[in-house]
């Protein structure tokens, strides 16, 4: 069973990047721009979900792209370029999270907002309810540990398969499977009220 409806990064990226990679590695900034442009949108979304801070995500993304350019000579083509790029970006985001603690993260803001809205859910409309659910989800994902959060994001949001996640996070596929399972268990526990409200389960 595949995650239907997920437009994973693998499906939107061109496969034939070798020539662009070669030119970029030779110093062509234009080739590098063409190389990274298809990935930046999804990559930023991933970083946003990991970092939950727009400024941090923008900083990390910019540095990740520069790092990718500088490390182009280390790319051997054994994995897809986007996997390699995501590995750099995700690792930088995780390192950034370890090194910095934002004063008030988006999670905290949304969590606070979400709690208030949940307490007064009878007064909100459908759109606001959707935002509330999103806020709760964000809060739940943000509460996950680093390794679980990144794996959930890569799987559920980016639609990466286990092997790709393993490459990005530099872990084995078996570890991906076990961590993903544990991450989902934790999410279920955090989102139990939300899940119970779902019509298919009620």
């Amino acid at each position, binding site marked *: *069973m*595949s*995650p239907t*409806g*997920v437009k994973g990064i693998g499906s939107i990226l061109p496969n034939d990047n070798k020539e662009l990679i070669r030119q*970029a*590695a*030779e*110093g062509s*900034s*234009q080739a*590098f*721009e063409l190389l*990274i*442009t298809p990935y*930046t*949108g999804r990559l*930023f*979304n991933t970083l946003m*979900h990991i970092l939950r801070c*727009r400024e941090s*995500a*923008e900083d990390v*993304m*910019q*540095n990740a*792209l*520069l*790092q990718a*350019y*500088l490390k*182009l*000579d*280390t790319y051997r083509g054994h994995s897809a370029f986007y996997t390699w790029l995501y590995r750099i970006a995700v690792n*930088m985001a995780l390192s950034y999270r370890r090194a910095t603690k934002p004063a008030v993260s988006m999670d905290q803001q949304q969590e606070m907002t979400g709690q208030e809205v949940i307490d007064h859910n009878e007064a909100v409309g459908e759109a606001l309810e959707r935002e509330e659910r*999103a806020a709760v*989800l*964000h809060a739940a*994902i943000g509460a996950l540990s680093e390794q679980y959060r990144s794996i*959930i994001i890569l*799987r*559920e*949001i980016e639609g990466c*398969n*286990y092997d790709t996640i393993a490459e990005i996070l530099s872990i084995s*596929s078996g570890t991906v*499977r*076990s961590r*993903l*399972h544990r991450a*989902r*268990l934790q*999410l*279920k*526990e955090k*989102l139990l009220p*939300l*899940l119970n409200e*779902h019509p298919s*389960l009620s």
Partner: protein
Amino acid sequence: MTDHNPNYEIDGELLNAYFDDELTASECVVVEQAIENSPQLRESLQELKILSKEIQCLSVEFHSNEQEMIDTVITKVRDRNLSVHDQAPYCNVKIPVMARGWKQRLQIPALLALTACVLAVLTLQFIPNEQSMTLVQTDGIDTTPPVENFHRADNNAPESEAIADNRLPMGGMGGGRSGSAGESLLSENQESRDKAIRQAKHAAANANEPVAPAQTRERSFAIDGAMAESEDIPQLNRQVDKNTAVADVTYHIQVKQKDLPTLLGLLTTHQNLVQNIDRKETVGIADVEKDAAEEPQRRVSANNSMAKPVQKSAVNQIVMFRSNASQLATLVGALQKNPEFALSMNHLQRSALGKTLTTEIKDAPSAKVKNQGATTILSDTIFSIQVIATP
């Protein structure tokens, strides 16, 4: 949540893998059979679907200005390309971008600073003091009276001339100091300079010919202030020029041609004292220039990297080499011990000498080096001896 079954975690992983379409066909068959037989697993699978759907429904976060961010990155990439000469992608520095950025930016300034420090140390070691002066070289060999800028003092009536020239025909400062010889020169400290000063003062005290003004050649040099300001050297034509930190003095010694082999032998035995030994044979002014273009180069010294073309002559022979203060003192002492040299040094033929210098200096590669300002670092007080051998 359906976590009561002790085997659920294992089954849960398998169920997750099934949900994620990560199982083989055989594994899928097993899981599907288990799902059919277990309402608990069906519920769990439904939870997985809902959870996944909820997460996937999260709003996609967009960069506030993605194109601007890309442009910024590309600009930085181009800047890095320029700064590292298009070698940025091949730089195997495994450090974070930000750290690499400041390190890379510091590389060139650090190298420049290091180079400046080395040059400053060398300059401070060899730069003349504020009393340094410039001697304007006279050039009117044929049209003006003989110039005696500096007199050797080894005999009763010396006519030896110390020609001040920072573009000597012996290969220039840089060339003359290259290799081990150059290092040895650079290693000369103040003591050697003091020796040269004492030697120069001694020579000036015994000089008996006044300085005669002549046509300037726009070649100047600075010698140590202590020596230049000595009242014992009234012959010096002074012109302060702090930009010129090089002091080259050429001694011209005339020997008889029959004594030339002996002199060459002496120089050969004193190769540790002199560098860039050149030998030329000249007839006259015109012949010197003509022969200089025709004759192949020949070097007397084995380590002579800046040798000059050998010019044949039936009359005079000029042997030139470079030395520095302390080396010169030792060498002159050795020459003075030889009575033949002491006698012949009193008979300098100035006309041939002056023309020879003029011709050679025009072609001297060291002139370019000096124009680049590099010699102020490399040069200290340097003495050359130009020996004219007459039949």
